[in-house]
């Protein structure tokens, strides 16, 4: 299993073979506040790198969730739709959003590692 990578839109992605698990970062949940609604992509649909692949809403506002890589949606996490507060509780593990069969592994190279992301998150929220 490869290391976890991060996007500038505050998604994390973990690759296992050719299937990637994607969610939003802890930093993202802290910026959003209490998440009260989540919408996920349709299973079987295709998503393009940096395209919209879902929505999260806090009590204050709605925000798009983007996919950091292209691929076909092979699984979605119904548990976070049923109880969106799980996203605040465990964003970088059990509250994953969707799984993709990825199209182009080289897209992973455009993403940040943990150190770079932490630095990026700190700079952009200052």
């Amino acid at each position, binding site marked *: 299993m490869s290391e976890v990578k991060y996007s500038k839109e505050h998604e994390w992605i973990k690759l296992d073979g050719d299937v990637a698990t994607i969610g939003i970062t802890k930093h993202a949940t802290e910026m959003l506040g209490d998440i009260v609604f989540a919408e996920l992509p349709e299973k079987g649909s295709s998503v393009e790198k940096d395209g919209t692949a879902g929505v999260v809403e806090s*009590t204050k506002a709605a925000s798009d969730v983007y996919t950091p890589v292209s691929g076909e949606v092979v699984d979605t996490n119904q548990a976070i*739709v049923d109880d969106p507060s799980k996203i605040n509780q465990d964003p970088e593990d059990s509250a994953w959003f969707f799984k993709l069969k990825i199209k182009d592994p080289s897209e992973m190279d455009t993403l940040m590692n943990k150190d770079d992301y932490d630095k990026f998150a700190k700079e952009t929220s200052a």
Partner: protein
Amino acid sequence: METKKTSLYQLHQDCNAKFVEFAGYQMPIQYSEGIVEEHKFTRNHSGIFDVSHMGQLFIYGGEDLIKDLEKIFPLDLKNLKLNHSKYSFLMDKDAGIHDDLIITKTNEGFLIILNAACKDNDFKILKELLEEKYKMVLDENRSLIAIQGPKSSEILNDIINGVKDLNFMSGNWFTFENQKVYITRSGYTGEDGFEISIANDFVDKLTRELINKGSKLIGLGARDTLRLEAGLCLYGHDLDKDKTPVEANLKWAISKERISKGDFIGSDIIIKQLNDGVSKIRVGIKPEGRIIAREKTKIFNQSDVHIGEITSGTFGPSVNGPVAMGYVENEFSKKNTKVFLEVRGKKHPASICSLPFYKKSYVKGVN
């Protein structure tokens, strides 16, 4: 223009507030626990709201002032008891709402609590309408805090003895640290509670004492979810110049006695709308499922015809689901009417419902 800060700014910072600019003020949107926890704490325990950005307008006068204010507000102010409060609105001649407000009769005249974004304009309008006959003070030297929720009476009474005996929508002068404070039993959350007008130099001390007794500061975020669950309007969203009190379904706040006389600004339109009905009206809207329909969401009927718009919508933590209100064409305003809300290009089912979404029977001595 520089953003203003309230006298509780330092305390907000000490409590890790996240700030937003609201009506020209740096105001706390939430603290570290977050909107949902703050909302629930207010419903179950006691929350303190800094509403010092709101206008506290004191107008000094006697019988003449009452007569002149009755030309402006659709209230029976002559028969309003001393220290009693009423919810009302400042209207134009077309009955369009320029602000909603709480007016209280005091021993020196009236105290009117105005929305922050409207207060300067309200002051101008009222000064003109009253022809500068009365002393009017939009007091910047006083802060305003609200304490709301079931434990608030006990907590506040521990510090300022006697407040627990106030009836709902009435007030009085009390003392704190030898300072005169004006306290009314009122609020905007659907909970029992109080609003406290106190000199800027003493509000920090009083608030810290309330926190020591177990209350907590609550941000504007939870204030919005609380008032929406309680079915209460937010000016600039649910109310504005293009809406009348009858359309806003607030006719309960208009004095029947005054309607029969019809001699206040906007009375022609109000009377006409009460007799002939209105084309659009404010309703509660409950989306099915978890979808949140926010302000400006379009509302459709079952034949896919556009019939209205959402004016406030969020997630209600006590309802544990989405809540909204908006305006629809009158024929679709009946409770349980099925409608559709267009969110991100898709139409989601919802139904018209009665307000409030959340109701507690706490009130004593409703006037």
